[in-house]
């Protein structure tokens, strides 16, 4: 499994490069975020963290796939924003946000634990 994973190495670098370029651009260009997107930012960032931890764990599990990573990243962010939007429309925005944060938090926690087991063998 591991060997087959590293044979795909040249592709796996793409999302990492892309993300780094994007982060650098975001840090240096400093464009303003439109006001109507502001309510979705916290949940979107938590969803992005979940995707990042998932990707890191998959990498250590030897199952990393750039396409799956990017698609899950994008869908995580979009779905999280959509849930907040829907919650706001239904008047349960805060509660839904809390639910999303709890679920994503548990996932981040479990993935972080798996990463720790990989890195420290403990």
């Amino acid at each position, binding site marked *: 499994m591991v060997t087959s*994973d590293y044979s795909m190495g040249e592709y796996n670098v793409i999302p990492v490069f892309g*993300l780094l370029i994007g982060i650098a651009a975001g*840090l240096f260009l400093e464009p303003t975020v439109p006001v109507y997107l502001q309510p979705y930012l916290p949940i979107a960032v938590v969803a*992005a963290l979940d995707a990042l931890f998932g990707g890191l764990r998959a990498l250590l599990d030897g199952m990393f*796939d750039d396409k799956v990573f990017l698609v899950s990243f994008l869908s995580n*962010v979009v779905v999280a924003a959509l849930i907040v939007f829907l919650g706001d429309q239904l008047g349960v925005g805060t509660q839904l946000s809390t639910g999303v944060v709890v679920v994503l938090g548990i996932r981040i926690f*479990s993935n972080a634990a798996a990463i720790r087991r990989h890195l420290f063998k403990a």
Partner: protein
Amino acid sequence: MMPDADPAQPRPARAVDASMTLLNEVMHRPLDPGYAAAAGRRARGEEAPRAAVTIVVLLVVAIVLGFGTARAAIELRKPQPGVVAARTLLQDEITSTRAEVATLTAQNAALGTSIDTLRDSALEFVDPELVRTVALDGFTNGTVAAKGPGITVTVADGADAATDPAAFVQDSDLQSVVNALWSAGAEAIAINGQRLTATTSIRSAGSAILVDLVGVAGPYEVVAIGNRNDLETGLARSSAAQQLSALGSQYGIKTSVATHEDLLVPAGPTRVLFSAQPLGTDNGDK
């Protein structure tokens, strides 16, 4: 295991915790199943090498996602500009309005003093008796500053007032102290520099105590002018003393009483009457 008729296709036993599928899914399978599926495809050699277009699309998506996430994180970390601006505006407004209030209050006091002086000088030759009556009335009303011997009662919030709202001094505590001092023969009383006149109220608004509609903060110093012995014994025998000692033991509200040779209580505001008219002199209200 459930008995099954067809051993070739055993029906999977219903899990004991089937009703908790959602929680189990979250807890035990935090990794996206897509990773395993993709790894399986790769292992079986089913996946064709990525086309150049796919790689470019992936790269663009990655850049956009990194950019968006970085922007969102930066945006969340910086203080909300709208809130800060509104807060600064309100702060400035409060400060400037406070200064204006102080100026107007000082102006009012100066004008009141000049009115008194002019009135006295005008009446001096016409009716010297009336000047004395006016001065005495003003003193009794609390609209003239007074000095003399007396006692100060200092009441301070409890030590854990920050966590326990009950450890704050309440308006009723100050009211009972003031009432006890009046009944003990106090002739003039001021709380934190606010003179108590005939129309002064002591009440709370939210967590603040207002004396004559001016907010005062702890420690509250009640200055009472009068016979020191009478005031001290009167206060000690009053129900206010019991209340204060109960507050001290229960909430840590500290009270201290001190006698002074020479105390000063400032003048209170003169209430201007707009609607009330004095009764006619023929009605004999003199």
